[in-house]
Structures are given as C-alpha cells and as structure tokens.
C-alpha cells in the first residue's frame, strides 16, 4: 500500500472553490468561440451526403468564384492528407494500435458527414453558400453498417487502403475455461448490445487559428489532447515547433474532444488565406461528425455452481469501429480486459474483434470500453442471481474481487480493492427505504444494484508521463505551469491545491497557468482519468526539491534567530539542534519548527533569502507511470493498467405499467476515491457521471444505415434537471490509490455501473430481462405486454 503518511491535511479533502469558478460564474470565462480577430474569415466544412460512396470528383470552381470566398480546399491541397493517429503517447506503439487518419476524403467515402472540402469566407452566410456551390461527384455504394456483417467474407470494404474490415483481434484468458463447464451446475448464455452514445457536451467544437508574425500557426482550440500539434505539424509538413495550440478551457469533453476536431481544418485554411480563421460547428454537425461510444455486441456464457460460486465465463465481443480506427484498438483493450469484470472467475476467456463499418467513427467516450462490458457482465450476474434465487447483493458479494485477487490478465493490482465495502454501504443505504411491490400511486417498484471496476491512468505500454513546473514568486506566492487541458473536471485547480498544500499556502496564493503546447510543460492528455494521478504526482515531484531548499534555508534562519548563545568566546550553538531541517512543517504561509511551533519564519522571507543568494526558485517535476512492453495481443498477460477504481450503484425505479414510463426514485452512488482532494470536484464527478451514464439508458441516436436521425437537441434528448434524480454520493477514502495522498482517479469510473443498476432495477420491476443499454418506455411497455401474453 503506497499511502503517504501526511495525516493532518489543511486543504486536501476540503471543499475548495476552484480558481476559475468565479470567472465562470460571472460569465467572464472565454471559450473557443469567444474570440475574434481583425480580418477574420469563417471556415466551414463540406461534408459527404452519403455514408458510403466513391469520391469520383470535386468541382470547386463555382465556389471559388463567389465574391468574398478566400479559399476552397480539397484533399489535393493538404500537404499530407493521411497520417497515423496518435493520442499524445510519447512512445510509438504500432501493432495496429495506430490506425489511419485522413484529413479530407479521398477515394472511398467511409461515413456520412466525412469532410470532403474546406471553405473560408468573409461571413458565415457566404461560407454556407460556397459549400452549396461545390459540386461533388459521388458514386453511391452499398456500404456495411453492422460490424458482424462487415467481418463476413465478401463484405463491402469500408477502407480503400486496407483489404479487410478487421481492425484488431485480442484475447485474454485465465485458468482453463473449456474444461470448467462441466463443473458448473448452471450455464447461462446471453447476448447484450451496447448502443452508440454521444457526448453531447454543451460547447460544440470550435476554435480559431492565425499565423503569427514569425510564421507559427497558432490555434485557440479547446482539446483534451494538446499533443495533436505533432500530428497536425506532420499533416502541414511543418516543424513541430511551428504549430502551437494556445489551449482554451472546454465546455465539456467526455472523450469527444480527444480526437482532432477543428484543428487541422483551421491550420489548412489559415495557411491558405494567411488570415485568421474561425470555425464553429453547429449542434447538428457536432452530433453527426464527432466520435461516438463504441457500439458493442457482447456474448456472455457464464457457468456457476448452485450455491452461487462463479466458475467459468466465455465472453465474445464485436466492436463497431466505424469509419476510421481512431481509439478503437485502445477501447478494445479496455473492453477485453474488463470482459469478466470485477468478479473473481477462476476460469475466464474473453475474445474481442473490432471492425470498420460506414457508421460515424467510434472513439473515446467516458468509460472507454469498460462501460459496455460493465453493463453486460453485471446484467449477466443479475440474471444469474435471479435464476439461483439469491439476493443480487449476496450473489455479488460472494464473487467480487478482493485484495490480492488477480485481474484476468493475472496481474494483482497494488491499490486497495473496496468492492465488498461498497456493496455493503450501498445495499444498507438502499434498504433504508423498504422494498415494496407497488407504490401508493399504483406504479410498480423496482430495485437494482450493480458494481464495476475501471482503470485510471493510461495503458502501461504507452510509458505515460507528466510534467508540472513551479516557480516561487518573491512575494511568497507560487506560479504553477502545466499543459493540463481542463474540460471541466477542475484539472488545473486541483494541481494548485496540491501545490498549496505542499507549501502550506492558502489556495489563492497558487495560480495555475494551463494548456499551452509550447509555453507550459506537457502534462499528457486529459483522458483515461489520468490527470489527478499523473499530474498530481508530477506536481508533488516538482515541489520536493523546492521544499528541500526552503527547509534548508529555513533551518538556517531559525537557528540564527533563536539559538545563538553568546559567550565570551563568541557564538556557540546548542549541541542537540543539528537536525532542524527534518522537523519543519509548512502551513499558514510560514515554516514552523514542529517541536516548538513558536520558532518559525515567514515563507516569503525564506524565498527572499534564497533569491538573494541566487538560489533556484524554479523546478519542473516529471512523474512516470509504471511501464511494460506491448503485450502479445492473442494472449494478454501482466499489468495493463496502473490501478483500478471500484464503484457500486443502487437504483430504485417506479414503472407506470400502462405507459411504460419510468422514473428514477433514488440513485445511490458509492466509489472508493482513495482520497478526495477537492471534495466538491470529487463529488461533482460522481454525480455528473451518474447522470451521464443514466442518460445512456434514455438517449438514442437512431442510427439507420449510417444516417444519424436524431442529430440535434430536440431529438437527441439528454437528461434535464427534472429527469435527473438527487444523487446520494458516498465517498469511501481507502487511501489505497497510487495518486497523490493515496487518491484514485474517479472521472471515468464514476460513469460505470449506473446503467446496469438502472436496467437491473427495471428488470426487477417489470419481471422481464433487458439486454440492451437503451431502455425506452416503449421497450418497457412491449416487455410488459409480452410478459402478460406469456402468462395468459
């Protein structure tokens, strides 16, 4: 257990207001669309009308002739139209992990709304008009829209660069599944379907780019991966020093702003016109064009003994990668690793395959593949518990992982495994309200529980690391510089809080400067719930040498102030005060000698002394995650993720059996966060994640042969304030994480186990099993009607 000993925290663990909260409340926070420049042009993307076609030709002459249009670009104008997709990893991984990224369509059009041409014009109306004047010669082809069809021989080939639709195969196994079936008293097989899910962040993709006086293409685009500047530089055939993203806080990301969105288009247009260009996607464009959560078809075959012990489980997953690779291989790793989930199966095997289709491309979405399997394996366990006549709580409690149990790749996580405690606390809280069959208003009551595990920190074979820079200012405050993209999780503020805690300063004395590819040290991506873990530790690393220097100087000053004993022969030190340095504590802008707090010195004074002597007031600390080699994908063994975070959710629902409408009466969310650094932010992630994952049960993109029918906020319905129940959050602090002060990552884990818990509750209420993450009133009513027909 790597628990740092610091017990008496002053700031860590409190509800600390964030440094940017006031600006956001006052409406002064500027986002990607809040910026204009003189001579600015408006950029627009012409997108494919068909999900699957061959691009025969593009005639841009009429568009170019329209007065006020300054650039019309197609794939020929892109210096390097195809590049390998990277996601800020410092190490080349290859092996099918880094797929193809095409800037503008060429050859086969692979999904609806794939970018074909770019326009820059003096007004938005002109840009729209110009797009209409571009004539595209499509040869519409049949396309393939189901990954299982795409994998069959002779299926329509989505990509013009590969000779198969198959993206990647992986397999994880433990024990001997094949021989274990006969040890099972009950074998249950089910097929689950995880639906595509849109991030629906409130701020659509937008940003600006301009060329500065020295020819550096500077962008102001909110993105979760600042390191995309490398890919863009390659595409523009420019040195990595000359593409800069002066990052902007995002109006939500959730993984949707992890891929390149507007950046490359802006760079191409500003290079072509030598004028600043702004591009803002409409909501319709955002929903149709950016990535979705991977739709997954999961087949579960689970064997258990009659007294409730799980014996064996076979999982086969088919992922719909959509039109381009993007994050599919990474998501597939998470899904495969999490196939059997947080249950201790002596024998398990999970195979997965991902395939191209002509649907919108799938990539990162909060949960990153773990949510799809979490829904399936927890539903499967719920179904089995019912078949065994056991309480869903007891059955789970018997089989969840415990400290020392290996993951399915054989690796034993060092962090604390709190699944049993979480189950206990949620079940107890749920049962504070007695379970009933019917509510007084006649609605059917249902209760469900589910638990989950999800990694935090990136895949270990990426050799992930993060850097934070600190500078002691002469007035005793601290400047923190970190290239940490802030998508709303308070990633910047928490680093300031950690630095303030380390130096014993109030939070307002540390100001974070964030998100600039070239002026702030790169912290790595804001993905995989890694920032608190990686950058938090990097921040502590950065503090260490500075604290050491401060302690050394403080010791000298304290000695000189309080301990000189004058004798005839001059000064004489008391003998036993040699080791002051080791007993100093930092708080309230002072450095105290712990044994006798009256002896202290101002933080500012110590900084001044160091400065006078030309000492270093600046330090950049780096933290490296545990690193492994790329595993053998056909039999993945060893550590894949640095550590896991465990969650458990309990849900009570009321179902109107006549209309199928249902309401979430209670939602209990429990998580072992290791240590809450900023309690408001930690709770915020758990509450926000709960409603985000709850939304997955109701939101439906209505995909039909590659066309997104629900492409705006009046048809793609995310939960409003009246649809979201009050979330009762329970934060367990096991101090068992590998983040700063024993913290664990909570961002994505908070987006797990609510959807299965809700669907478990609905199945409990209606008495019919649901196998799809999306359960609309219509589905509930149909299930009730079929059940009634069967009972007759």
């Amino acid at each position, binding site marked *: 257990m790597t628990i740092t000993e610091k017990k008496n925290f002053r700031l860590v663990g409190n509800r600390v207001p964030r440094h940017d909260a*006031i600006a956001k409340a006052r409406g002064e926070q500027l986002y990607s669309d809040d910026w204009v420049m003189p001579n600015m042009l408006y950029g627009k993307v012409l997108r494919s009308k068909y999900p699957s076609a061959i691009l025969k030709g593009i005639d841009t002459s009429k568009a170019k002739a329209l007065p006020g249009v300054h650039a019309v670009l197609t794939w020929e104008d892109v210096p390097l139209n195809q590049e390998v997709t990277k996601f800020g990893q410092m190490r080349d991984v290859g092996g099918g992990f880094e797929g193809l990224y095409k800037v503008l369509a060429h050859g086969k059009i692979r999904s609806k709304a794939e970018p074909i041409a770019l326009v820059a014009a003096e007004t938005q109306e002109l840009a729209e008009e110009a797009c209409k004047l571009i004539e595209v010669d499509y040869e519409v082809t049949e396309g393939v829209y189901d990954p299982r069809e795409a994998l069959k021989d002779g299926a329509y080939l989505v990509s013009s660069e590969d000779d198969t639709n198959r993206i990647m195969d992986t397999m994880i196994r433990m024990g001997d599944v094949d021989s274990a079936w006969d040890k099972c008293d009950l074998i249950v097989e089910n097929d689950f379907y995880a639906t595509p899910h849109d991030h629906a962040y409130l701020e659509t993709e937008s940003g600006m780019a301009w060329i500065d006086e020295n020819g550096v293409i500077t962008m102001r685009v909110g993105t979760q991966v600042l390191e995309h500047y490398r890919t863009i530089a390659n595409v523009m055939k420019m040195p990595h020093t000359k593409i800069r993203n002066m990052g902007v806080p995002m109006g939500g990301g959730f993984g949707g702003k992890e891929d390149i969105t507007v950046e490359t288009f802006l760079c191409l247009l500003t290079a072509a016109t030598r004028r600043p260009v702004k591009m803002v996607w409409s909501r319709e464009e955002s929903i149709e064009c950016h990535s979705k959560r991977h739709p997954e078809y999961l087949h579960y075959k689970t064997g258990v003994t009659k007294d409730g012990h799980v014996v064996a489980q076979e999982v086969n997953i088919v992922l719909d990668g959509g039109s381009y690779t993007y994050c599919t291989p990474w998501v597939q790793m998470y899904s495969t690793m999490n196939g059997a989930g947080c249950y201790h199966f002596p024998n398990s095997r999970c195979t997965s395959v991902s395939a191209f289709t002509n649907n919108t491309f799938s990539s990162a979405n909060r949960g990153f593949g773990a949510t799809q399997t979490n829904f399936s394996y927890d539903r499967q366990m719920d179904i089995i518990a019912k078949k065994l006549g056991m309480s869903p709580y007891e059955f789970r409690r018997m089989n969840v992982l415990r400290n020392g149990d290996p993951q399915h790749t054989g690796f034993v996580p060092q962090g604390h495994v709190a699944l049993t405690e979480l189950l206990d606390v949620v079940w107890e809280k749920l049962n504070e309200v007695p379970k009933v069959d019917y509510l007084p208003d006649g609605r059917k009551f249902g209760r469900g529980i589910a638990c989950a595990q999800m990694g935090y920190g990136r895949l270990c074979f990426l050799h992930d690391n993060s850097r934070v820079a600190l500078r002691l200012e002469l007035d005793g405050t601290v400047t923190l510089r970190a290239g940490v993209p802030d998508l709303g*999780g308070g990633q910047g503020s928490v680093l300031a809080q950690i630095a303030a805690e380390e130096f014993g300063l109030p939070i307002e004395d540390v100001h974070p400067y964030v998100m600039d590819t070239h002026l702030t040290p790169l912290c790595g991506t804001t993905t995989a719930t890694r920032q608190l873990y990686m950058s938090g530790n990097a921040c502590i690393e950065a503090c260490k040498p500075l604290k050491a220097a401060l302690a050394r100087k403080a010791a000298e000053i304290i000695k000189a102030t309080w301990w000189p004993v004058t004798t005839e022969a001059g000064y004489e030190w008391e003998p036993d005060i040699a080791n002051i340095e080791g007993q100093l504590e930092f708080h309230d802008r002072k450095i105290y000698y712990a044994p006798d707090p009256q002896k202290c010195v101002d933080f500012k004074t110590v900084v001044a002394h160091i400065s006078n002597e030309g000492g270093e007031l600046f330090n950049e600390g780096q933290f490296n995650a545990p690193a492994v080699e790329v595993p053998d994908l056909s039999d993945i063994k060893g550590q894949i993720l640095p550590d896991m975070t465990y969650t458990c959710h309990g849900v009570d629902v009321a179902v109107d059996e006549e209309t199928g409408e249902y309401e979430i009466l209670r939602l209990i969310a429990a998580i072992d966060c290791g240590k809450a650094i900023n309690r408001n932010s930690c709770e915020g992630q758990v509450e926000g994640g709960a*409603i985000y994952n709850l939304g997955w049960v109701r939101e439906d993109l209505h995909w039909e042969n590659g066309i997104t029918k629900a492409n705006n906020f009046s048809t793609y319905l995310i939960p409003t304030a009246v649809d*979201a129940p009050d979330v009762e959050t329970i934060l367990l602090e096991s101090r068992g994480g590998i983040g700063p002060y024993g913290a664990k990552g909570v961002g994505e884990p908070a987006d797990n186990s609510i959807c299965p818990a809700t669907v478990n509750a609905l199945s409990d209420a209606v008495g019919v099993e649901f196998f799809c993450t999306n359960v609309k009133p219509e589905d509930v009513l149909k299930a009730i009607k079929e059940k009634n027909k069967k009972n007759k």
Partner: protein
Amino acid sequence: MSNLLPLTLKVNGEEKTFLASPHASLLRVLRDNYYWDVKCGCEEGDCGTCTVLLDGKAVKSCITLAHNCAGHEVWTDKGLGYNDEITRMIQDAFVECGSIQCGFCTPGMIVAAKHYIDHGGIADRKEIRKAISGNLCRCTGYNKIVDAIYKVAVELGREVR
C-alpha cells in the same frame, strides 16, 4: 443578403444601437457585439445556454427575434453579476457549492435561477429543478446546482419545503 436595420436595446443597463439583419436572433446580435457570456449550444431553443433576461423574464435568446425586442431591456449573466445583488448571491453560491465544472451552462443556468428567485421561487428542490429544466448540463448531474439555488432561497428567507 438582407439589409441591416438599426436596433436599439438597453443591454446590461446601457442603451445601445446595433445593426442587425431583420431575421437575426437576439443571441447573434449579443454575441456579435462581444456579449460572450451568452453562449450558443444548439441555436434551437433546446439547451438554455443562451438564456438572458428580457424585461425581467428569462428567455432563450437564440429563438428570440432581435428586432422584436427593440426598445426593451436585456440583462445577461455578466451584467447582472455586476449590478444585481441577488445574481451576485447566486453566483457566489454556485462557486461555494461546487455547482460549476466546465461552466458552459453556468451563465444561462444563473439567469434561469435569477428568474426563479425574482418570481417568488421557494426553497423546494423539485420546484427548483422545474425552474432550470430548460437549461441542460452534462457535467454536474444538476445536484449541486440545485443545492446552490436552494441555499440562496433559504438565505432570502423563502418558504422551505
């Protein structure tokens, strides 16, 4: 392109005349004149990030015809924050209660809360949720936002349910 007509509005207490095309939305007129605390999340009246006060009533500026507001008074979150005590209380409560994550929905949310409080809003979580049901938020799950508005209603001595 239709021509631009002069449009006089009182925005955040200042009388101003803008040039706006006949079909321009109040949102576009405000944002094109650098009132950037009025956000655009859908431009269809479905997300609420563009909520402003028009003559004291919360409206969605993206589906409000700008010229229909000629001579009327518009207040945005930023303007209210500097001129209205109640809005300042709501803003501070949002900061203290951790009701803000990405902050994109916050300006519209605060204006909706201001409308609710101004029209006799009581300290009742269900009523508060109804009042902000026109303002989508994807990050917070609405919990802490309701906490903040509840806190302000209590501080103002409203009926507690």
